[in-house]
């Protein structure tokens, strides 16, 4: 008897067909994006309106009432940039958290690489980010920010944020299947991260005693470097804020460490996701 050609047939995170993996991720992400914005009257604009409104309120409060940004060059641009980036991070992680549960009908009915689900959430959020960065660019140019060589760094910084958000997303989505109270826990964690990271303020506002430590969080480092590269080349770099270039290994280590952890946990859980839902 001919032995059948045995390919790995278990449910897995990645599958063994990269083309299918990419096609699926793309299809799911594009569909989500379409669903969110094409069905409504204002379409794409909705993607913009939320962070813009948020930005408007924050800007009024912090530049005119709390005067947080009085000594920051292009504070409005920094605020919008960081809010847009933060929106991407929050959208990815929050979306990924619930993603496996939301796609239960797919997971229980069809065999496909499980990682497609949280990754498509990252991708949808990334589409939004691209649209929103367009608005940031308009505001930046209108505010007097001029193109500089540092802009070349922007894609790298966005990529790092993408890796971090996707890592957290993989971790959360796999764990949420087991622990359903992760949602409120992550809500609180996001709040802490939001106020603890240099979003409404810049990293140099941290108290001197803990400035190096707090600036070494991945989000702080990315946002700080973003400010220098994109908005104001005279602003301190991430390396300066953490106290020396070698210390940049810390945020980088966290970014890739979280990604590796998320990857490992997701791979471990992937074969049994369908039955644990």
């Amino acid at each position: 008897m001919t032995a059948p050609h045995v390919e790995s047939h278990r449910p897995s995170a990645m599958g063994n067909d990269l083309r299918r993996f990419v096609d699926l991720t793309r299809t799911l992400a594009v569909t989500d994006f379409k669903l969110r914005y094409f069905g409504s009257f204002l379409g794409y604009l909705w993607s913009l309106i939320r962070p813009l409104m948020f930005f408007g309120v924050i800007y009024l409060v912090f530049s005119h009432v709390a005067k947080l940004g009085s000594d920051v060059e292009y504070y409005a641009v920094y605020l919008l940039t960081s809010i847009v980036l933060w929106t991407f991070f929050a959208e990815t992680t929050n979306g990924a958290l619930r993603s496996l549960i939301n796609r239960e009908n797919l997971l229980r009915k069809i065999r496909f690489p499980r990682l497609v689900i949280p990754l498509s959430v990252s991708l949808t959020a990334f589409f939004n980010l691209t649209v929103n960065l367009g608005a940031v660019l308009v505001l930046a140019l209108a505010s007097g920010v001029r193109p500089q060589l540092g802009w070349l760094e922007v894609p790298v910084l966005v990529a790092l944020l993408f890796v971090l958000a996707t890592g957290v997303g993989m971790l959360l989505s796999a764990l949420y299947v087991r622990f359903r109270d992760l949602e409120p826990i992550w809500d609180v964690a996001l709040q802490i991260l939001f106020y603890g990271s240099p979003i409404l303020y810049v990293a140099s506002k941290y108290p001197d005693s803990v400035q190096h430590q707090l600036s070494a969080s991945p989000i702080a480092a990315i946002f700080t470097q973003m400010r220098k590269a994109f908005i104001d080349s005279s602003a301190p770099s991430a390396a300066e804020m953490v106290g020396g270039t070698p210390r940049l290994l810390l945020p980088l280590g966290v970014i890739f460490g979280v990604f590796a952890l998320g990857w490992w946990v997701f791979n471990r859980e992937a074969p049994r996701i369908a039955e644990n839902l």
Partner: protein
Amino acid sequence: MASTTPEHGTSTSTAIGEPVAISVRDVSKTFRIPHDRLLTLKERALHPVKARKGGYNLLHAVDDMSFDVGAGEFFGIVGRNGSGKSTLLKCIAGIYDTDRGEIGVRGRLSPFIELGVGFNPDLTARDNVIINAVMLGLSRQEARDRFDEIIAFAELEDFVDLRLKNYSSGMQVRLAFSVGIRVDADILLIDEVLAVGDAAFQQKCFEQFNRLKAEGRTIIFVTHDMYSVERYCDRVMLMENGRMVSIDVPETIAKKYNELNFGRIVEETPVDGAGDRYGDQAAAEVRDAWFEDGAGERVVAIAQGDPLQVCLEVGFHTTVEDPIFSVALRNEMRQTIFATSTEHEPPVGRFGAGETTLVRIAFENWLAPSLYSATPSVARAGPKGANVFDVREDLASVRVFGPRFSGGVADIPHSIEVERQ
């Protein structure tokens, strides 16, 4: 096509000379059913002991199964609810991981476990077709290339840009089915999808399955419906409690399945001996009654057409001359379908006190599929009709099963001639 009868629940052979499309080797799948599932971190923190020990029951959904499906086979899997057939299908489909064993699959596999997976009501048919096709294994380019074909098969050319939520459910099913069928997988897994749709649609489905089969594709078909099993499958596997009972030709398996199924139902039906009892039983009593097949084995279920006999055991307390034994058969609708007695037979003779006699009434089993109960009685013959000693309503029962229900209470052998004038 040749078939094999396995010994002791394991079979490794397919029809001779066929390459194997799917091989299942020693596969087991067990689910833990926790008594008290800890779904949150809080609970785990509060009950660390319970979290570690965690009482649970093991459910052996698939228990050490091995079999092969040959390329080009139409292979049926039948079994009662909870027998593990859907879990097995999900293991083959690669949706569930197996605990032990190996499943080998050759070729692209398309699961029809549910039609229209991933369909979104807010998107147009066009978008949904592409998404569904990609989910089922096509590349985006292939999906776009086959789009027209899919829409044509579903006969929905005029509704391509309509959102799915404005489709009727029948249109949605048609669309979903055409996507599934046009993915052109080498192996199709079909789980009761044909329960949906009208008769004409089901007919169309099976025509497609036969077309695919003729093209050498392999089809695994999970169902309860013995009629379609007998009509389409080459070989069928019967499952019970996560194990394979046997693999055989459809006719044999359909019979076994019905025995298994209806045997259980009859056991659970409180008909036996539950009925009323009349008469004083002073002179004679009906002690027991049961059904037997042609070989004299007691049965609670039997296939239509198989010889059937109803037996009664009668005990006498005094001497009785020429008693009359009779029995009446009622169906589920409580209609008396058949009754007979020894009244108009030659006299049966004298029975003495303390004597026990066995009466066996054999008949050709033309009964329509239903549950039948027998009401036996014994009576004294007299000039003014029978004087009843003992009547026991619904003392025994038998389930008659058949491939289809004709609508009549009996299926009398007949011939039909159609003569054109």
